[in-house]
């Protein structure tokens, strides 16, 4: 019988489950994909059930469940936060306390009631879960580790090292001095949603000048080692309405209302925020490199979903290699918690490679049934022809939905739940937005490139399999792939190797054979405001409710 441990992250945002068996990741998925509600935070019952099915076990067969943080420590910090903002924090207190009383302090009881699991439940500190999620799936035997997010229990950033099956965290920064909360506060000031709009702000930053940078530096004074403190007179993380204070508004002007037109000062604020964030993480990483004298760096926490900052860490921190797993945010906490128990405490061997395709797969019969139910007829094709046909459709400026194999974990589509487009076509961004995505026009679309050709198009000397780096596009190639070149000349690249995703690789190769360009646009398969599609039914729903031109489900091509 395999030793099985179930990792869980939930109750804040982006809940997820992960099943590890004998040290290998059997399955992992975010609850939002099943309940169809973005950033779902409930106990991930459907994700758990999927993981147990994938492992061919029931909850009774689990040796342990592991929660990705320590709830009572977190509650102590929440009370302290409300005290700091007393009496303005009453609204937040009134809203959050019922959740604490109902479910946040009773994880073992809930697991017993909902799943019949009566074994041992463990609790790992939030940033230790992040650190474990960064180091254990990495290819490194030893590495420095840096984590940064909004806040766990008390910790907002941590640094340390990993060797073999051991992790050592040396230092931490503590609430309320938080880079993640600072980024989120300014994101909401700019009229975007917390925990959702940060990536949008990163994209917006390329259109502005960092004209507020000096003023932001004054309210976020930083030391050479990257540590900093926030001037609390500008921020109020437990206030009733906003994460920033009237003083912040007095200093930087009125906040932007959601949906209102973007002005230059908004773009400049985004650019300033991004510049300061890069300064901070770069200083943290350089100092960690000097202290640890290690060549490899592992990163986790929501801050490291910022691919522009990640690229600078790779280029300028002194580390030779950087590893960031695809679910670097809180969803990856489930993976980290399970990995810590499995490797550190039980001594199971590490997996050696991170496979992001850990979600549900659908058999050809299920796809046929879904198509029949929707009244759609498609052509079933052998793989070579399927890839050639899809490549031709992409080259004809068609917007193509592509659902293959197991679903990705993490926020990025990595070639299995993807909308495809032609990167050579300067109008394709508008077309994809008009037909399906309806995103802000300034947001770029990302390229998926054959790994061996990446250096021809981008200034990169390291792979980016999880789309978490943003190298510069080579000057001479900007006009070749205008649709994936962002305003600042970068692109959020995914490098694709045949061994990791054979069919996606062959599709891009077919596109290269047809056009000479080894790149396709890869954007997440969803409608605006919805999570990535999981099942063929959901893919068909997007296909039928939008102007998407073609849909490829497994071996079957459907065209309008």
């Amino acid at each position, binding site marked *: 019988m395999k030793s099985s441990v179930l990792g869980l992250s939930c109750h804040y945002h982006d809940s997820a489950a992960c099943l590890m068996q004998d040290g290998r990741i059997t399955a992992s998925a975010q609850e939002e994909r099943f309940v169809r509600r973005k950033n779902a935070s409930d106990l991930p019952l459907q994700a758990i059930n999927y993981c147990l099915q994938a492992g061919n076990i029931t909850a009774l067969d689990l040796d342990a469940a*592991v929660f990705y943080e*320590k*709830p*009572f*420590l977190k509650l*102590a910090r929440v*009370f*302290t936060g*409300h*005290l*700091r903002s*007393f*009496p303005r924090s*009453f609204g937040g*207190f*009134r809203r959050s*306390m*019922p959740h604490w009383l109902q479910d946040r*302090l009773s*994880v073992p009881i809930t697991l017993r009631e909902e799943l019949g699991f009566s074994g*041992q*439940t*463990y*609790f*790992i*500190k939030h*940033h*230790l879960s992040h*650190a474990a999620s960064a180091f254990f799936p990495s290819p490194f035997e030893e590495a420095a580790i840096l984590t940064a997010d909004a806040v766990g229990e008390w*910790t907002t950033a*941590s*640094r*340390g090292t990993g060797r073999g099956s051991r*992790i*050592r*965290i*040396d*230092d*931490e*920064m*503590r609430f309320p*001095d938080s880079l993640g909360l600072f980024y989120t506060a300014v994101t909401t000031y700019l009229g975007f949603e917390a925990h959702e709009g940060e990536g949008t702000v990163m994209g917006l930053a390329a259109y502005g000048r960092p004209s507020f940078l000096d003023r932001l530096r004054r309210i976020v*004074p930083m*030391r050479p*080692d990257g*540590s*900093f*403190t926030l001037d*609390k007179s500008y921020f109020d993380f437990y206030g009733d309405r906003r994460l920033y204070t009237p003083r912040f508004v007095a200093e930087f002007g009125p906040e932007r209302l959601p949906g209102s037109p973007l002005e230059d000062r908004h773009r400049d604020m985004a650019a300033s925020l991004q510049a300061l964030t890069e300064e901070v993480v770069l200083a943290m990483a350089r100092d960690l490199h000097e202290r640890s004298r290690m060549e490899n760096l592992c990163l986790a926490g929501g801050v490291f979903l910022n691919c522009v900052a990640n690229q600078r860490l790779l280029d300028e921190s002194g580390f030779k290699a950087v590893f960031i797993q695809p679910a670097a945010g809180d969803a990856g906490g489930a993976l980290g918690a399970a990995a810590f*128990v499995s490797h550190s*405490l039980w001594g199971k061997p590490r997996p050696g490679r991170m496979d992001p395709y850990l979600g549900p797969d659908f058999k050809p019969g299920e796809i046929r049934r879904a198509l029949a139910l929707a009244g759609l007829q498609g052509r079933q094709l052998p793989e070579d022809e399927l890839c050639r046909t899809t490549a031709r459709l992409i080259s004809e400026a068609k917007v193509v939905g592509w659902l293959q194999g197991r679903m990705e974990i993490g926020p990025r589509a990595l070639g299995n739940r993807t909308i495809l487009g032609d990167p050579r076509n300067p109008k394709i961004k508008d077309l994809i937005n008009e037909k399906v995505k309806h995103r802000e026009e300034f947001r770029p679309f990302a390229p998926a490139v054959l790994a061996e050709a990446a250096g021809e198009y981008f200034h990169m000397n390291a792979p980016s399999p999880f789309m978490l780096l943003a190298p510069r596009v080579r000057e001479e190639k900007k006009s070749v792939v205008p649709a994936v070149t962002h305003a600042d000349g970068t692109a959020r690249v995914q490098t694709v190797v045949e061994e990791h995703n054979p069919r996606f690789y062959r599709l891009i190769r077919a596109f290269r054979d047809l056009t000479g360009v080894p790149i396709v646009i890869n954007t997440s398969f969803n409608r605006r405001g919805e999570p990535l599609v999981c099942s063929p039914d959901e893919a068909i729903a997007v296909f039928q409710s939008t102007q998407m031109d073609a849909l490829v489900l497994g071996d079957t091509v459907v065209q309008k």
Partner: protein
Amino acid sequence: MSDKGFFRRLWDRSIKAAEAVIQAVFLPAGLFLLYFAGLGITWVFSKLLRVESLRDPDPSAKTFWTPAEGFEPDLEDCTRQS
């Protein structure tokens, strides 16, 4: 049989009504009291006693990193929620 059904339904309705009253009245009132009485008194004392976790770090500090604690747990540590 029908009496039992009647009483069962009555009981269920009473429970639901009680839950609704708790949700609508007692829970907000309890939270109000907990916040303004409980946290309020704590706030006054924490200000008087200058409790460390409510103080900001010294802005002239050379670093804002602090030594990490509790990050090398064994199985026993991991059973605790705090």
